[in-house]
Each structure stands twice: as structure tokens, then as C-alpha cells.
């Protein structure tokens, strides 16, 4: 072995030893992830690992649950306790998890189709009961994984594989739905607001009760290219231009229109407190 080579070997460990701050929360052996370039999912996951790190939540106390979809794949990448449930059932699974282990910090990380089409019923009931969990919805306005069909959050007029000349259905306004169903924390940000997302996640994770964070996120493959939004980066730029931060505003005014000029309201809509499902159940049963 030449001296030169030896020297190289000696410096190598130093170069590779710096650990990425997110690494401890992720299953490195599962990487690289399956997501397309320009997809907003990677940065959403980073915001979540950063939030866990910042709050210093021990990895053993975290449970990440997701349903099926591109977003749903996230559960498989977390080094925490994680579960990839069936399509739509992340929230009832998470409810069971929380009830059996009330100390666990339960995060549901899933897509708009998973949480609001096939799983919509579970969302409103968990919010109504105020089950202590944080639900993070990556809203990319379509069923990304199955090839870009329209779903419950697709803006009117938007093109999808099942609406080749535009979707004529009325979409959900997710912050409004969450607030009216009883969520005690409701915020919306976009993939361009990396720090704000992290902050919202920290707040949501710290709240006791049903908290909800919506992230508007580019899906260039399924949605962007059919709707002339360009690459992922172009969609981010449009969020920079279109979003208006209005903390505490009426979530009823937070509808999203397809018009690329139309304003999108982001911010924290609700921050409230009320007894959680477990609190109420304990109190009630003790009184009997």
C-alpha cells in the first residue's frame, strides 16, 4: 500500500462521519426514497424529523402512522415505531395505538386522498373526539401514487387522469373541515415554507389533542405537468407569489382555486384547548 493511499484512507472516516441531523429518525438502509425529483414529500419529512429533534422527543416515544399513497410511503422510512396501514385507515389505527399507549407521541403522516377520500370519515370522528394525535396531510391535489386521478382536494377545473377536461366537483377546504370537526390546532403551509412547516409541526406535536397541519406540496408527476405548473420548483415559486399569511383568519376563507394568480391563505387558523378523548373518558368513568 503506498503512503499516498494510506493518507487517503486516514482522512476518509472524518469526511463521512458527520451525521445528517435527520438520520437518527430515518432508516438509512431504505434510502434513496421512491419519490420523484421535484416532489414536496422529501422536505415535508425533513421538517418532521427536524421538529422531533428540536422538541427532543425520544425516538422510542414516537409512533408514525401512514396510509397508502406516495405520502403513505413515509412511514417505511422512519426509524421510529412506524406502521404502514391500509388505504384510509391511518387514523383509526393511530387511535388504537394512542389508547393502548397514551404516552406515545402519535403522528399520522398521509396524503389528501388517503385522509379525505377513503379515510374521510375517520378524520372527522377523531377530530370530534379530540384524540391526542397530530395529523399531517401532504396535499398535492391528487392521487399521486395511482397515476394522478382527481380526488377530494382537486381544485375545480383542474385536469387529472379521470377528469381530462377538468374536474367539476367542489373540493374540500381542509383547514375549514378540520376546524369545524373540532381540531384544536389547525395550520396550513406550503412546501416553500420549510421553517414555518417545522414550527407548525412543533406546535402541533406539543399540543394535547387533535392537531392538524396541511402542507400544500408539488406533485409534478401526477398533477403539475397536467396543469401547466411546470417543474416542482416552478410550483414552489408560484406558492411564494400566491400565498398570503393570515394567522387567525376564518378558515372558511381558505379555499384553493385553480387560477394560478388566485391568493392562497396560509397560517395558523386555530389554536385552542379542550379535554382530549382520554381525559374525558377517565373523568367520566371515575365519576361513575
Amino acid at each position, binding site marked *: 500500500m503506498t503512503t499516498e493511499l494510506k493518507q487517503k484512507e486516514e482522512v476518509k472516516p472524518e469526511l463521512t462521519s458527520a451525521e445528517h441531523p435527520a438520520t437518527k429518525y430515518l432508516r438509512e438502509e431504505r434510502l434513496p426514497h421512491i419519490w420523484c425529483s421535484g416532489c414536496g414529500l422529501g422536505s415535508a419529512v425533513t421538517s418532521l424529523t427536524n421538529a422531533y429533534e428540536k422538541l427532543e422527543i425520544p425516538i422510542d416515544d414516537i409512533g408514525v402512522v401512514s396510509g397508502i399513497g406516495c405520502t403513505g410511503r413515509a412511514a417505511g422510512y422512519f426509524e421510529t415505531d412506524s406502521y404502514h396501514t*391500509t388505504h384510509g385507515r391511518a387514523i383509526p389505527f393511530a387511535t388504537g395505538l394512542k389508547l393502548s399507549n397514551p404516552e406515545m407521541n402519535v403522528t399520522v403522516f398521509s396524503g389528501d386522498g388517503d385522509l379525505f377520500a377513503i379515510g374521510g370519515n375517520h378524520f372527522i370522528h377523531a377530530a370530534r373526539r379530540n384524540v391526542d394525535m397530530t395529523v399531517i396531510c401532504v396535499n398535492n391535489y391528487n392521487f399521486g401514487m*395511482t397515476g394522478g386521478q382527481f380526488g377530494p382536494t382537486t381544485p375545480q377545473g383542474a385536469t387529472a387522469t*379521470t377528469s381530462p377536461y377538468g374536474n367539476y366537483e367542489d373540493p374540500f377546504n381542509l383547514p375549514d373541515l378540520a376546524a369545524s370537526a373540532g381540531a384544536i390546532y389547525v395550520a396550513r403551509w406550503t412546501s416553500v415554507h420549510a421553517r414555518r412547516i417545522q414550527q407548525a409541526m412543533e406546535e402541533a406535536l406539543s399540543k394535547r389533542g387533535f392537531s392538524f397541519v396541511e402542507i400544500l406540496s408539488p406533485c409534478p408527476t401526477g398533477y403539475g405537468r397536467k396543469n401547466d405548473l411546470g417543474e416542482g420548483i416552478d410550483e414552489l415559486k408560484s406558492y411564494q407569489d400566491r400565498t398570503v399569511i393570515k394567522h387567525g383568519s376564518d378558515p372558511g376563507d381558505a379555499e384553493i382555486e385553480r387560477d394560478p394568480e388566485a391568493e392562497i391563505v396560509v397560517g395558523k387558523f386555530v389554536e385552542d384547548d379542550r379535554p382530549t378523548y382520554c381525559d374525558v373518558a377517565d373523568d367520566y368513568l371515575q365519576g361513575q
Partner: protein
Amino acid sequence: MSNGNKEVLTGHQVVANAMRQVEPDVVAAYPITPQSEIVEYFSQYVADGKVDSEVITVESEHSAMSACVGSAAAGARTMTATASQGLALMMEIVYIAASMRTPIVMAVANRALSGPINIHCDHSDSMAARDSGVIQLYGEDAQEAYEFTLMAQRLAESEDVLLPVMVTLDGFTLTHTAQVAELLPDRAVSDFVGEYDARYPLLDVENPTTQGPFDMPDYYFEHKLQQVDAMDNVPDRFLQVQEEFNDLSGGSYDGLFETYKMDDADYAVIILGSTAGTAKVVVDELREEGKKVGLLKPWLFRPFPAEEIKDVLLDKEAVAVLDRSLSFGSSGPLYLEVSSALSGEDTKPRLYNYTYGLGGRDIKEDQIAEVFEDLENPDLEDKMRYIGARQ
């Protein structure tokens, strides 16, 4: 087939075209791999004005089948398509569709059931529906999937049947591959399927009916027997529909299953779906070596043509049933049917069960050739064998 057009089409496209030609009043569905493109193509046809149907992509398969039952009960011709978890979620309403005698035609792009989650082909999804009261047809290739979808419409709507029909095609192997297929002219198909005239449509306000009410022990049993009768009518009706279809297409359907080089065969395999195509190649090769081998491929799995299959198998030396799904704690679903068909016979072939292709595991020609080789051994132990699985 003479009067149609030969085209290179995927399984998705042929089924979507069959649906376009049938022109249902309503299609309700929810996307799932490997089915999604069927409804995507169909939505495109609707949007382009090529077919006058209402498509609603609802919020889940449970809702899709519920919407289908509502639409069919109203008297509308109704179709849907799904796969795997989607069919599993539909299941509650598949039973309702059958017992409420709604002639809904549905395509199932076969895919393994979770867990673990898997998107590739096996028959665990459609086999889970085998007791639901739905008629089941299994296609070997795109052409059969197309033709069965058309025939299914007539079969479902036959007066003495009135049951939902499931047309299955192997996920990816048939749905996503392009094959040469021949479509009939649109006009010929609309003449063949005709107008649907529902017997007791809910929307017939002159003759109001109540559908789906509570059934007590004093009548529930008899209502189930009506379903039994309807199923019993299927084989004859299917043969009749085949005959009419042959007149139209120049085809040669004449049975509830296909036999391939079975007449003088000593050894046979029984296979559903696309793998039968692979088995045909193996049969040809072994025949060239002078081996007397053959294949039986059921088209109709529900109702199961037990008598007819028994007649073909009785004089064979040994038969292998290849199942592409498990019935945990028992033998494979197809094997159970064949075994029960042969029970009670004194002289019958040795019968063996193999499981293959779970979760999309490939099965190759030499593996099927090995099965034929096994059959030649008169002392072959009777136990389940798992083709190509690490054990």
C-alpha cells in the same frame, strides 16, 4: 373473427373499449393499481363524447359498489372495475349486489391481497369473493377479457340469472401489456347487448317496489334458494350467450372451460388465467417429445362446472391443479373444487395441488414442465407444493 379490427391494445384498453361499446348508464369506481387505467380510459371516452355514460369516481370502493347497487336498482345498466384491497373493501356490497339481483358487470385486475402490501398478481382478491354470489369468469388474455366483458353483460341481465358478473384479468401480466386484440364493430356490440330492460326498477313510480328490507328467519332461507336457482341457470345461459356471440364474432366458444390437447392426454394441469398461456407452450413442447399431456383452463369458476370437468378428467392418469391463491388451513380454492368434482368416483386420476405465483412471483415454462414430470411418478406424495418459493 372476421369483421373486426386487429389492434395492439393493453388489457386496460380492451376492457375500457368493451365498456364503451356496452355503453352503461353509470360507472362508479375508485382508482387502484393495476385497475386504474381502465376507468381512466373510460373517463376519456366519456369526456370525448364517445360514450354516453355517467362516470362518478367516488371516495372509496365501498362507495363505488354502493353507488352501483343504487344505480342498478334504479334500472340503469351499471359497470365498475377494481382490484385487490378495493375488492376486499367492496365485499360487503358485492354480497348485496348479488342478493339484490343487480346485474352489475365488474372487471377485476387480479392483485394480491395485503398484507404485506403488494401490487402484483395473484388470485387472492377474486377468490375471496367466491362465496359472494357473483358469477366469475377468468380470462387468459386481452381478447378473452374483452369478449367475456361483452358476454358478461348478456349473462348478468338474463331473466333467469340477474346476478353480478366479475370478469378477471391478471394484473400487470394482462392489464399492462400490449397484445394483439380484435375488437368488434361498435354497432355489432350494441346489437348484441341490446337495451337493458330492468325488471323492477326503483324509478318505475307506477309500480313502486321496496328493495332491501329486513328478512326474518321465516323467509331469508327461501330468498337464498332463489339465488341458488339463479346460479344454477348460469351454465346453460352462458353456453347460449356463447353461441350468439360466435355468430357475431366468428369465434368458437363452446364450453364452460377450454381444453387444450386433452382428448388423449394422460397427464393434465388445470390453471386459471394468463398462466394457462404459458402452460400451452409447455404442453406443445412436451407433445413434441411424445408425452401425452394437456391443459384444462376453467373460464367459469362460479358457478363451478363440476360435472363437465369431471367428465373430462376421469380417464386421466394424474392431474395437477395449480392455484394462485391460498385458503389457509386447507387446500387451494381451485383444487378443492376439482377434488370435490371427482369425489365419489372409484376410478379417477391421482390429483395433486400446487400453489404458484403469489404476489406476482413469476412462473416459468420449466417449472410447469417439472409439474408434468412429477405427475409421471405413480408414487408422488400427496401434499401441497409451492412452485418457486424458498422454503
